[in-house]
């Protein structure tokens, strides 16, 4: 029997030999044993593990391995070929030294690679200082080192995590950034301004190389040195491509990550805190890596966090604060951060879109080292992420356990041996490291099983390099309480891929050419690399580049740009070779070459409107903590039209609650003059969200309709539509027009529905105030020609009245009968078409009725010029954890689950094929305390299905709605109510689309589309939708659209509307942004 099993397993492992990586243990283990003087409860980073550095220390052409140990000696393993290693002794290498990060550098410029090891010291009983091993060369095959940190001023003590050598001032020698972590009590975040107070023991350091000695230049260079920076991740890279290296620091806990942009004068400016250039970052930032992941020549930023992928771990782990408390953290001076990996796609000009969820890499458990490199040599960089934690201190059941008073007292009064037993109760979360394959469109597939296997481990620092010189990248991983691993890459044996290996010979004071860039053109694609060894977590890669070339046999061109700007281009280089590039062969300055300007279609305008929309903090989550998003942040629409009969486009600037609506009158010279809407500003309490300029009374003068909403009021005057009629003295409020009609409005149209020559009105509502998901009434009014409107919602508009939570309507003649039909977008509903026969509206049966979405917007045009009208519709997008299909929808249940007379709106979605609530246990039990009685432990809650969690009958009888599609789509009209739904391009899905404008931006007579959006007021469990910078999609004239990646305009922020206007004969677009100033863009005419 036993034999049989063994045979089976043999056989199995034989058939699995197609794995891309073969595992081999290395003779090193980072063993950690909690002791009373040092353990996970008295040193919070006790389990962070050790680092890995790869480099050829004996110049034999074979990469060697350096592994750091925390409570064990570090180990240097010399590569003897065929992946055999032998260890050599190091001076001052003691298990008493708590080593952390390791990086290589030729610090004395003798052509021999030296080693710098960071360590934790001056904490508890930990002593010592950072060590610098100077390579003494090899005699008789034995390489020797001396420890000489003091000579260079680098024998520093403190809580060091990692170092990066780089030439920030471009003076030709290598300076150093030193990353430290902190042991400051991490929940007391207080005011973020603490970050500007220098703390010499815990603050990061920037040291300048002055004739071979390192001088602290931190203070003068704008580096934040604070006790609240828990620095765990460090990369240096020329992020904005200006020739000067920048710095990215990942900080654990509440402190922001730092994006230091080199100011070219020896100083840095931190762009995340001051300019919010990143939107949001990892909350519990660990390691990071900066490299170009979408082959556009711009480095992208990858940072990892601790979001569990397994649903049970996720639901049993502590997650983000609820929305109201989260706001407090923001008010205290911190940037938005969420527990998720982040991938900041570089959009050029220091603009980034965070796309980790859409790219499929947001959740990789408790992660340490992200390494982005082309492991399968197909020309696209893949991602390896190490993870696992010996003491998962975020396990809520453990937290409850340790909260026991008796245990607390023991921990408080100095720990003894017996107390160490408590640490054993900490769940050890061993998890398999991840491999993600880049599919070429910056979307990644989890190929852990295919490329390697899913074996749980506690893995920390890792590095890649071609250890067996076969042209592909092998991996070395440092593990806690297990041998370090070497993963031999068999790609070159397995596939017929080719490669190019590049080595650098720099100048005398930077022999390894650190900071050099490589731009590789092959078959119309670009690959971009930087020679920056410090990457991932506490680790560094060799100072060389291995580029995968897929099936190409040559490279069309290769440009190397050295740190001083000099460059060299080589053409038609054969693949599968090692190429050494010399700085002395390069010349002139790459950054002096005038760049070919990219074709621009629109650009940001310099015109600034003296108006700021001020929306109050959303109270939606205070009222309904279980909802996925707020409904109180829908404005402002900025409406364009001539309101003073001077032929110029004026602007209606709507005011949020307690802010008066104003009109901005355009002057002959193109400037705008702000004026009150009305002498008597009695409606400033209204949250105005939409307006239309139209001729209500058929006198050929524009009148104005203003609508309010905002989920602030449930009824009454603040929800009445307001009609202003143009009189000789200006706009006059016609109070009687819509009295006693209360609409929490979303949109409206003035359209001649009955073809009698005057403009009728449709007014739509998105919500019933304070009743999340309930269907509000829609309205239709017929104009008698003089501006008197009759409500025909229940007759003519019967099909419209209860159609759903409408966010957008376009009235267009879809069936060619001469009457405008309604095309509607809304939440919990499909794109719906109501045909108009001149007496009533009738729902058109379509094939897209099952595509229920959180549709915010739509536009109708004949995009493919086939004579019928097609539809573009803006939805929630794909860049959150939420996914929805017909089989696995998002479901709203409205029920009084706890019989207290109040309906609780509960929203579920499918995650890993299981229906689960968006709300966490902590949020749920506040609303529904009975859940605490049923599921005492987080563990039991995590295992419960939705119908175990909540009374079955209540779920069955609940008011239900569904969402089956979250992507923004293009619907090509194929006639007879048939539409072909097509997913809009990648960048259209990275955020919610709130408005779309159709125009011929490239003047090719085909209609194009500009999409705007973002949404900040969503559940903190879902993060924040801030990735959109506005997206121009050009009509490819073949029935689809082309997205513009690097655009010459930037619409950051929560955009709500975009409208076209003319200023001095030039086409402009104005974007309404929630709670900030509007943005003006100008069309570029060529």
């Amino acid at each position, binding site marked *: 029997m036993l034999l049989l099993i063994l045979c089976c397993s043999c056989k199995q492992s034989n058939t699995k030999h197609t794995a891309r990586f073969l595992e081999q243990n290395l003779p090193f283990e980072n063993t950690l044993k909690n002791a009373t003087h040092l353990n*996970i*409860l*008295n040193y*919070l*980073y006790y389990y962070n593990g050790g680092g890995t550095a790869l480099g050829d220390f004996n110049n034999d052409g074979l990469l060697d391995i350096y592994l750091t140990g925390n409570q064990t000696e570090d180990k240097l393993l010399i590569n003897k070929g065929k992946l055999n290693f032998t260890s050599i002794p190091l001076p001052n290498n003691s298990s008493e030294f708590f080593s952390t990060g390791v990086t290589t550098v030729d610090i004395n410029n003798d052509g021999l690679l030296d080693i710098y090891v960071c360590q934790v010291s001056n904490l508890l009983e930990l002593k010592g200082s950072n060590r610098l091993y100077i390579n003494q060369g090899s005699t008789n095959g034995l390489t020797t080192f001396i420890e000489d940190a003091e000579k260079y001023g680098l024998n520093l003590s403190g809580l060091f995590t990692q170092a990066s050598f780089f030439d920030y001032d471009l003076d030709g020698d290598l300076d150093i950034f030193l990353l430290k972590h902190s042991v400051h*009590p*991490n*929940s*007391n*975040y*207080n*005011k973020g301004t*603490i970050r500007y107070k220098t703390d010499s023991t815990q603050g990061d350091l920037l040291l300048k190389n002055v004739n071979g000695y390192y001088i602290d230049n931190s203070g003068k260079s704008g580096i934040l040195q604070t006790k609240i920076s828990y620095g765990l991740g460090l990369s240096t890279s020329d992020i904005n491509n200006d020739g000067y290296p920048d710095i990215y620091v990942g900080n654990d806990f509440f402190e922001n990550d730092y994006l230091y942009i080199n100011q070219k004068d020896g100083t840095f400016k931190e762009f995340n805190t001051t300019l919010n250039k990143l939107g949001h970052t990892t909350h*519990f930032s660990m390691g990071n890596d900066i490299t170009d992941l979408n082959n556009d020549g711009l480095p992208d930023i990858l940072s990892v966090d*601790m979001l569990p992928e397994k649903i049970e771990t996720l639901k049993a782990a*502590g997650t983000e*604060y*609820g929305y*109201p*408390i989260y*706001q*407090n*953290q923001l*008010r205290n001076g911190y940037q938005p951060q969420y527990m998720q990996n982040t991938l900041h796609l570089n959009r050029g000009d220091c603009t980034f879109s965070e796309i980790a969820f859409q790219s499929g890499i947001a959740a990789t458990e408790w992660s340490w080292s992200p390494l982005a490199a082309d492991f399968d040599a197909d020309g696209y960089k893949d991602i390896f992420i190490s993870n696992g934690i010996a003491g998962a*201190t*975020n396990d809520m059941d*453990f*937290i*409850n356990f*340790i*909260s*026991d*008073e008796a245990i*607390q*007292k023991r921990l408080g009064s100095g720990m003894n041996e017996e107390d160490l037993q408590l640490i054993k109760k900490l769940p050890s979360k061993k998890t398999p490291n991840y491999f993600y394959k880049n599919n070429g469109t910056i979307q990644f597939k989890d190929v852990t099983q295919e490329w390697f296997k899913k074996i749980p481990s506690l893995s920390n620092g890792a590095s890649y390099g071609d250890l067996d010189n076969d042209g592909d990248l092998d991996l070395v991983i440092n593990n806690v309480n297990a041998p370090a691993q070497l993963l031999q890459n068999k790609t070159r044996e397995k596939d017929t891929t080719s490669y190019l290996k590049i080595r650098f010979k720099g100048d005398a004071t930077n022999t390894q050419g650190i900071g050099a860039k490589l731009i590789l053109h092959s078959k119309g694609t670009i690959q971009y690399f930087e020679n920056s060894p410090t990457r991932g977590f506490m680790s560094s890669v060799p100072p060389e580049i291995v580029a995968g070339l897929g099936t190409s046999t040559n490279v069309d061109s290769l440009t190397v740009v050295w740190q001083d700007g000099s460059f060299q281009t080589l053409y038609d280089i054969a693949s599968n070779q090692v190429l050494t590039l010399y700085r002395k062969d390069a010349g002139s300055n790459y950054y002096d070459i005038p760049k070919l300007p990219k074709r621009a279609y629109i650009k940001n305008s310099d015109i600034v409107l003296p108006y700021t929309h001020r929306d*109050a*903090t959303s*109270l939606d*989550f*205070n*009222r309904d*903590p279980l909802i996925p998003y707020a409904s109180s942040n829908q404005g402002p629409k900025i409406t364009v039209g001539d309101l003073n009969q001077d032929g110029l486009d004026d602007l209606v600037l709507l005011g949020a609650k307690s802010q008066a609506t104003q009109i901005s009158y355009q002057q002959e010279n193109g400037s705008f003059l702000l004026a009150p809407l009305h002498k008597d500003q009695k409606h400033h309490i209204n949250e105005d969200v939409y307006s239309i300029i139209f001729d209500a009374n058929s006198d050929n003068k524009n009148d104005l309709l203003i609508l309010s909403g905002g989920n602030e009021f449930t009824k009454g005057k603040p929800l009445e539509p307001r009609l202003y009629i143009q009189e000789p003295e200006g706009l006059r409020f016609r109070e009687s027009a819509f009295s006693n009609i209360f609409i929490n409005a979303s949109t409206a149209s003035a359209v001649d529905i009955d073809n009698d020559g005057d403009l009728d009105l449709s007014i739509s509502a998105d919500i019933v105030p304070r009743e999340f998901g309930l269907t509000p009434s829609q309205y239709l009014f017929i104009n008698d020609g003089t501006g008197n409107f009759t409500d025909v919602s229940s007759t003519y508009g019967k099909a419209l009245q209860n159609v759903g939570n409408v966010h957008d309507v376009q009235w267009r003649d879809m069936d060619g009968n001469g009457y405008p039909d309604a095309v509607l977008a809304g939440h919990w509903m499909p794109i719906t078409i109501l045909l108009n026969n001149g007496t009533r509206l009738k729902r058109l049966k379509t094939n897209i009725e099952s595509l229920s979405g959180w549709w915010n917007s739509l536009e109708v045009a004949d995009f493919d010029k086939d004579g019928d009208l097609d539809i573009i519709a803006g939805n929630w997008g794909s860049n959150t954890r939420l996914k929805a299909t017909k089989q696995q929808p998002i479901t709203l249940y409205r029920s009084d689950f*706890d*019989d*207290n*007379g*109040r309906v*609780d709106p509960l929203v579920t979605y499918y995650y890993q094929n299981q229906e689960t609530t968006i709300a966490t246990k902590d949020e749920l039990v*506040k*609303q*529904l*305390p009975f859940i*605490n*009685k049923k599921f*005492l432990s987080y563990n039991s809650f995590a295992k419960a299905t939705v119908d175990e969690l909540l009374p079955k009958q209540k779920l069955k009888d609940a008011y239900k709605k569904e969402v089956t599609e979250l992507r923004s789509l293009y619907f090509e009209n194929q006639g007879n109510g048939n539409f072909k739904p097509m997913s809009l391009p990648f960048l259209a899905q990275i955020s919610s689309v709130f408005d779309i404008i159709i125009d011929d931006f490239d003047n090719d007579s085909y209609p194009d589309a500009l999409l705007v959006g973002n949404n900040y007021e969503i559940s903190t469990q879902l993060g924040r939708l801030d990735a959109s910078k506005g997206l121009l999609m050009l009509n490819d004239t073949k029935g689809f659209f082309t997205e513009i990646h690097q655009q010459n305009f930037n619409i950051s922020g929560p955009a709500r509307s975009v409208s076209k206007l003319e200023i001095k004969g030039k086409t402009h677009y104005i974007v309404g942004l929630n709670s900030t100033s509007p943005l003006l863009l100008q069309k570029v005419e060529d």
Partner: protein
Amino acid sequence: MNTFSKIFGVFVIVSTLWSCQNDAEPIVISPEHFHESIDRTTTVIIHDIFSPPVASRIYAYPSIAAYEILASNSEEFTPLAGQLNGLSEIPNAPTENYNPEVAAIVAHMDMSRRLIFSEDMLTSYRDSLYTVWSDQNKAEFETSKNYGLEVANHIVAWMDKDNYKQTRTMPKFAVTTGDESRWQPTPPAYMEGIEPHWNKIRPFVIDSASQFKPVPPPAFSMEKNSDFFKELKEVYDISQKITAAGDTSEEIEIAQFWDCNPYVSVTRGHLMFATKKITPGGHWMGITKIASQKANFDATQTMYAYTKASIAMADAFISCWDEKYRSNLVRPETLINDHIDDSWQPILQTPPFPEYVSGHSVVSGAASEALTSIFGDNFSFNDTTEIPYGLPMRNFKSFRQAAQEAAISRMYGGIHYRAAVDNGLDQGIALGKFVVNALTMQTSTQTASN
């Protein structure tokens, strides 16, 4: 039925008969049973981390259920039906095989079980008692137990109308303005303000939550000479002085003794957890036990004391919370960190709700009046309540002295200004006296006058 079950069936019948014939002994319930039930409830309240106002509700209703049963059977005591808002008479007691003390302890345990989360922490103890009593006198036990549960149902029906469930889904407290005078979440857990709608809970005796509305706190001002700023500075100065004197100073002992914060957040790395302690209500329930034992109270007298004290405290929380979210005043920690010393931490952890008035002061004032009306003014006692939580015993000459110390402890702890302590104590005393006068619990007045 197969042979085995037949035999088994006969065995059951025989054994039942056997137990029936041996049930001559009556079930004896001592005051200790009631103390034990309350102590165990306190343990679960700590474990489940109920906030102080919610805990006061968990103490009150079970006590009332037990008291109503005992008082209905007593010459000395009068039931509370008709005296508490909305409480009607409990169902008539059985006439045969009935032991009111069994019914009362059953009602108390069942009510407590319903009000907490972790039921198994109570039910195993209950079941072991049930087994003993059932063995002692099955008929008496069953009759009394069923009646006790019937009364519990009666009390639950009344309790369910107190608006507690409705307040669960009312809007959470919102901090939206930049107004510095308004409360905002405090380190280290930055919890949202708890129970912002507690003033909508139906009170037991007082007419409305605002009946004992205190005078407003000193007007907010960061001017150095303003009363408000002086009080803020006083908190800081006292704290600095105490801290300099060290952990063994009288003030620190007092502060820690009366901490009574059920959720003290502790952070170690990614690990953030709460140390759990009793609530102010729990502390005074402990004092009630000590006094009852010292006075050799029987079961009915014991429940009388618990009931009166718990009602006074429950109303005190309603009254206090009404003011907290009315004045919505910022905690000293927030202002001291922003204006005086950004690394200052109070000796006690700031609890998650607005500052004015001090909850412990109001509740201690009310509880001390209730207990004084029962045990008299100069009733000295050794307060051992905090010993299980690692704190020493303290001796008090009277309940009122204890209440005064509890009140001032909040200033020593750095979590309240003086006005909140002084006005809070006044509010609690006034409310306590009102409750004492409003309720007729003893048939003939025997207590020392207050």
